């Protein structure tokens, strides 16, 4: 057990995820055939030995609550600690809508104060990776830092996808000397993974102080403004990081799972990723049905052809249908002799017979949840 608790902020603006976040928060966006992005954060925490997790819900959190239920799938239905969903509420000094991350964290001060752990890991909900935080916490303690930021090295970057891109510069001692949010020309290749370790009392102080000065955003008003005053350090994560910050990156990171090395990194057996169990029958391939270079979840019935695609639970591909380079979410139906290429189908989409739908690799087309084509 680590002497830490997790605080996950799920109120991120929906950015460029378009239809994916019309009816759900980023944390509840389906990923990788059977997961939602929050599964990675929760599993990382639990695999670290952290069993006290607060989830700050902001808006559209119905599907998130639906997914989390009591937290039992992550072993977070506990008598001591466990899972706490913290939705906004109206009080005499709170309108019910958070003005920003500072306001959001402040409104769950009650939960934070009650947490018995010394350290907190503050996380966003759109950065996916598989790790444990034990080493990061140990380094944080050893270095005497006020805040330790998890980061990784990013290569070439499509600026149109830039969102919440916090770049970090270090001095030779490893202390952070500069933080830049969404720089047009990033000065470094070190980008924040949206996870911060600090003492609980540090978080309490920084948030109360920012609030008192009418500051709202944790990244720009607390971190960036205090680079000089605080001992901020970094912890490098060397594994695969998927930033779900645009429809394009969402598509790319799902497709990346078809790469054996990437899927191994995200689903390494030592650190399983837990999710809500649906008790579907295994996938069934019948008649001429076949899939190649694809990820197929339980409950699928494949009677047509599937290539280079990610199929979520309970998808039906009818005879003669061809699905290529596409992401098909839970419960969608692809009618006979229809053809899909470079498409993202949200949950429960029905494609009739002999339809042809096609996007482009650089601009996949998304069909909204529950649509009939």
């Amino acid at each position: 057990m680590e002497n830490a608790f997790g605080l996950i902020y799920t109120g991120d603006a929906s950015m460029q995820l378009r239809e994916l976040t019309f009816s759900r928060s980023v944390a509840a966006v389906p990923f990788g055939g059977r997961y939602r992005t929050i599964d990675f954060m929760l599993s990382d925490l639990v695999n670290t030995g952290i069993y006290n997790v607060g989830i700050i819900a902001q808006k559209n959190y119905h599907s998130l609550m639906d997914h989390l239920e009591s937290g039992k799938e992550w072993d977070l239905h506990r008598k001591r600690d466990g899972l706490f969903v913290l939705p906004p509420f109206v009080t005499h000094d709170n309108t019910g809508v958070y003005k920003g991350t500072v306001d959001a964290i402040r409104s769950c001060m009650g939960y934070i104060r009650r947490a018995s752990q010394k350290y907190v890991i503050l996380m966003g909900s759109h950065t996916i990776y598989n790790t444990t935080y034990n080493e990061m916490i140990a380094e944080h303690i050893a270095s005497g830092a006020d805040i330790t930021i998890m980061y990784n090295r990013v290569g070439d970057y499509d600026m149109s996808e830039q969102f919440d891109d916090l770049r970090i510069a270090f001095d030779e001692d490893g202390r952070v000397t500069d933080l830049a949010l969404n720089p047009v020309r990033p000065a470094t290749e070190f980008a924040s993974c949206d996870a911060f370790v600090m003492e609980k009392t540090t978080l309490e102080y920084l948030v109360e102080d920012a609030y008192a000065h009418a500051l709202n955003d944790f990244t720009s008003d607390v971190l960036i403004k205090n680079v000089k005053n605080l001992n901020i350090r970094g912890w490098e994560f060397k594994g695969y990081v998927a930033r779900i910050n645009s429809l394009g990156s969402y598509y790319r990171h799902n497709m990346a799972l078809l790469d054996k090395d990437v899927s191994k990194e995200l689903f390494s057996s030592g650190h399983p990723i837990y999710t809500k169990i649906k008790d579907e029958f295994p996938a069934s391939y019948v008649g001429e049905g076949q899939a190649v270079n694809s990820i197929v979840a339980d409950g699928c019935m494949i009677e047509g052809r599937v290539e280079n695609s990610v199929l979520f639970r309970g998808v039906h591909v009818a005879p003669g249908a061809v699905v290529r380079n596409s992401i098909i979410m839970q419960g969608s139906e692809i009618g006979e002799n229809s053809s899909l290429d470079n498409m993202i189908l949200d949950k429960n989409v029905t494609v009739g017979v002999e339809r042809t739908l096609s996007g482009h690799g650089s601009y996949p087309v998304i069909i909204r949840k529950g649509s009939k084509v």
Partner: protein
Amino acid sequence: MPKKKMIAMLLAGGQGSRLGVLTKSMAKPAVPFGGKYRIIDFPLSNCVNSDIDTVGVLTQYEPLALNAYLGSGQPWDLDRMNGGVFVLPPYVSGSSGRWYSGTANAIYQNIPFIDQYDPEYVLILSGDHIYKMDYSKMLAYHVKKKADATIAVLTVPMEEASRFGIMNTDGEGRILEFEEKPKEPKSNKASMGIYIFNWRILRPYLVADEDDKNSDHDFGKNIIPKLISSGAELYAWDFKGYWKDVGTLGSLWEANMDLLGSKPEFRLSDKEWRIYSKSPAMPPHYLGADSKVKNSIVSEGCVVYGEVEKSVLFTGAHIGKGAVVRDSIVMPNAVVGEGAVVSKAIIGEGAVISKGAVIGCEPTPEDGTYDTKLTGDITLVANTVTVPEGRRVPVGMIVK
């Protein structure tokens, strides 16, 4: 403890010796089935789907795998404040104590467990059958007939009737006679080993049977005939649907094959009657660019680079490049190496078929003679065994 209308007692002590090495270290109900399930998931899910929330599981043979699997009962929604799933092994009491000597004795030894709930009815189930059944319908029939006991029966082909316990009934469904494996069957209504008893009626019979030195303490052989002869009201409830005793390697293989196809013999994709199981938290399966999977079912965590036809791949199975798997069952986390060929075989949990090995090939004189009494034409590789590179295993052989 609050009174329960009906509780279930699941007989899971069977060794399942006809399943050969598959049950060497686990009881039959823990044997994997259907890609992601274990046999016991079927009676447990049937209970939950029939609104039965208290299930006693009677174990005595190799209970570790089963105990570990059942845990708190959470996967079946049986982690309850009042009721739930209970593993009931035999125990020592005072200076005495003994193993369960028969199905009736197993229930007898657990009378105190049942009495806690003061149930009106007790449902007796066995842990080695694959089927979907709504026990609440059977109970409704039992209540309507004002029966003392009701036995679920399946209509089997007349020529096979002599393999079963046969119920001879009158036009109303009242059981007049019970014959265990009759040479000349008078009816083709076979007992499925599923009974509902009025607990008030059954209890004294269990006590009396325990004192009978000549009894085998078996429901079919002793309790049912005694109830009939003493004039109790026993009724047969006709079950229509898929039911399979998976007590042999042949029937286990067949029952798995019955899941294949777009209109399978046995359909498990029924949203109204889900079969629950413990999830191993694995990602969806991956089929490689050169893989060929036809007419098969594939579970979470599988990785397939080779060719698979008419087979059932269990959770976490790995099929290497150029490997061919046909008409086979590959159990959880088993590995079929590059270029290996597997035909009509059962590959046990965690077994490794190394590169180029051939499982289920034509026998040659060098293979000598080996016993195929249990296997017939199915080749069996035991759990966690490694078959060395290039090794040929002939049809019907057991590798342990």
